[in-house]
């Protein structure tokens, strides 16, 4: 059997060599399809690993409390995208923050109440990200200040800390300390500027560089509808972190009278919502790219059909000297498979060249995993199988006598 397959492989290879340009162009079609899928998968992989590495940098003592389940369905992730509905849904409160603060093995707690509002500084910014939090945020996030101080619990006036990017937008400088701004009709004094983080993708779903940080309590006084999207907790001791997670969960359930519509996460789980979101986006993109694979497959089928009709006489001769249905069928199927697998291989190479080029201008490093290699192999194999089947059957079914009379 292996001898037979090897023979078919040799036959297919030699007939593809006879039409080098045609074979190359067909491979190219498949290659582009595979490349686009691999590129998307590679980007998705690199985003996931970026977030994971951030979380591991944050330390294994980080616990995150989020409203609603993170075992998200497509709907809930899409809701996160169209965020306003999600803000309303949050059932986390400032009371929860103070409850968690009192627990054992908890070193510091910071709420994250994210909203989007217009800001009036020297310039007007119609939609800036406002983060209501507390003094612990800086420590929990391992952030540093470029200048000034962070929010203080004992501040007498409304203070705000600004991201470097937003500072530029509002004041045209990254040193706006002492300047004031108006948020929701209240005046805030800038007391600190965050160092540039350049981390637009992170587990908080926040671009810290273009956010404004104010006290959650103050924000709650100005605007009663304060919604906390996330509570970040640092444990004192990593060893007992699972117990701490359970303790937080039980405490919150007790305080919310049995409402379990929130989740307490640590370690890898923290990346989940961001990961799911990107999976869905890239999954959709991959399906779109899959269309190009179908187009490539149709190209293969077209070329194979041309090849079958051009070689009708050859098929007749082969049948006359003893080729069976399966001999001819396999010869043509192998040709299609060689075309698509070679195309898949080139696609893989092309995808990584592109991924490398993209990595030069973005933080997304090319990401290789055996799943991606398997996907590229399987998609190109399936392409060859599906689109090579009909031409191969057509070739194998040819009548030897009429084929022998055919001179292409």
């Amino acid at each position: 059997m292996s001898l037979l397959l090897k023979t078919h492989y040799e036959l297919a290879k030699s007939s593809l060599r006879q039409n080098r340009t045609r074979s190359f162009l067909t491979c190219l079609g498949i290659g582009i399809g595979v490349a686009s899928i691999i590129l998307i998968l590679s980007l998705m992989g690199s985003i996931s690993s970026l977030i994971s590495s951030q979380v591991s940098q944050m330390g294994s003592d980080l616990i995150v409390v989020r409203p609603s389940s993170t075992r998200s369905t497509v709907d809930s992730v899409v809701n996160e995208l169209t965020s306003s509905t999600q803000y309303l849904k949050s059932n986390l409160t400032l009371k929860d923050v103070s409850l968690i603060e009192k627990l054992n093995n908890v070193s510091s707690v910071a709420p994250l109440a994210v909203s989007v509002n217009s800001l009036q500084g020297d310039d007007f910014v119609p939609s800036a990200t406002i983060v209501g939090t507390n003094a612990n945020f800086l420590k929990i996030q391992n952030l540093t200040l470029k200048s000034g101080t962070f929010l203080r619990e004992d501040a007498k006036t409304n203070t705000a800390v600004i991201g470097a990017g937003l500072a530029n937008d509002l004041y045209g400088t990254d040193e706006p300390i002492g300047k004031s701004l108006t948020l929701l009709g209240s005046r805030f004094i800038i007391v600190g500027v965050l160092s540039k983080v350049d981390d637009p993708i992170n587990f908080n779903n926040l671009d810290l560089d273009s956010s404004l940080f104010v006290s959650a309590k103050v924000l709650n006084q100005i605007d009663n509808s304060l919604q906390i999207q996330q509570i970040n907790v640092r444990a004192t001791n990593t060893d007992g972190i699972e117990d701490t997670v359970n303790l937080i969960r039980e405490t919150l359930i007790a305080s919310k009278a049995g409402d379990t519509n929130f989740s307490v996460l640590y370690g890898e789980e923290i990346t989940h919502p961001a990961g799911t979101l990107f999976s869905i986006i890239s999954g959709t993109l991959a399906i779109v790219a899959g269309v190009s694979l179908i187009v490539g497959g149709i190209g293969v089928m077209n070329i194979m059909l041309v090849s079958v009709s051009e070689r009708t006489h050859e098929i007749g001769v082969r049948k006359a000297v003893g080729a069976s249905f399966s001999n001819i069928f396999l010869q043509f199927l192998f040709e299609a498979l060689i075309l698509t697998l070679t195309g898949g291989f080139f696609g893989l190479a092309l995808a990584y060249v592109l991924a490398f080029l993209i990595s030069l201008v973005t933080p997304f490093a090319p990401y290789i995993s055996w799943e991606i290699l398997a996907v590229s192999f399987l998609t190109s194999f399936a392409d060859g199988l599906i689109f090579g089947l009909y031409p191969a059957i057509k070739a194998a079914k040819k009548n030897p006598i009429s084929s022998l009379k055919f001179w292409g």
Partner: protein
Amino acid sequence: MAEENEIIIKLESLTKRYGYGDAASYALKDFDLTVKRGEFIMIMGPSGCGKTTLLNIIGLLDAPTSGVYLLNNEPASRISARRQARLRSKKIGFIFQNFNLIPDLPIIENVALPLVYSGYHKTRRLIRASEVLDRFNLKEKEYYMPFQLSGGQQQRAAIARAIVSGPEIILADEPTGNLDSHSSSLVMEELKRIHSEGNTIIMVTHNPTLTKYATRVINMLDGAIDTDIKTVKDSDLPVPVASRKKKPQKSLKKQKKSKNKKKKGKK
């Protein structure tokens, strides 16, 4: 000797019809024929009398509309398509008027083609094809493409292809039809030599001067036998030479297998 010349092909009231009803035409009509091993039959007759159809049916490329075709006493209708293909590669050799070499393959690979389908390793195929080409004085043209050869050389290569797997029956459809008289006599000498080794040859021709090579001449008319003359007694037909009965050479895999068996036996 009589045992050696057993019946190899038997056709009983074979009919091949094309079309239906009023449009029906018969290429063969109630055709009976018995062929013994070692016969060199020449089939003559006007165009359209069913000669080629007869060869195609005998060569298992076509099936009769009705009637019985016994190949080595086995009804052809009961042979599966897969086995028919295997028989074509091992037991039957075809020679065509227009040579039917594959233009994209060098001569040696064209000659080795039937061995592809009888499971020979590539090296073995080429060695065997080279041996046969040597016999036809084409060894130095092995790697020429078909278009680089003259008609006579192409036909000799096609004959080499027909006998490469050591078939019992050789079917030739006007093998000299496209050749000049010199090439044509060369080709006939080759066929004569193959016949003298005990092969059965059935050849269709329009050329009455070639009948001198035959042991039996059949004239066909309108899908049936008109005259059937045996020029050589059955008892004087050539018998297969001892070497002809041997398989050409086993494939590498089979050789390995048999070696393994031997080794196992020794253990």
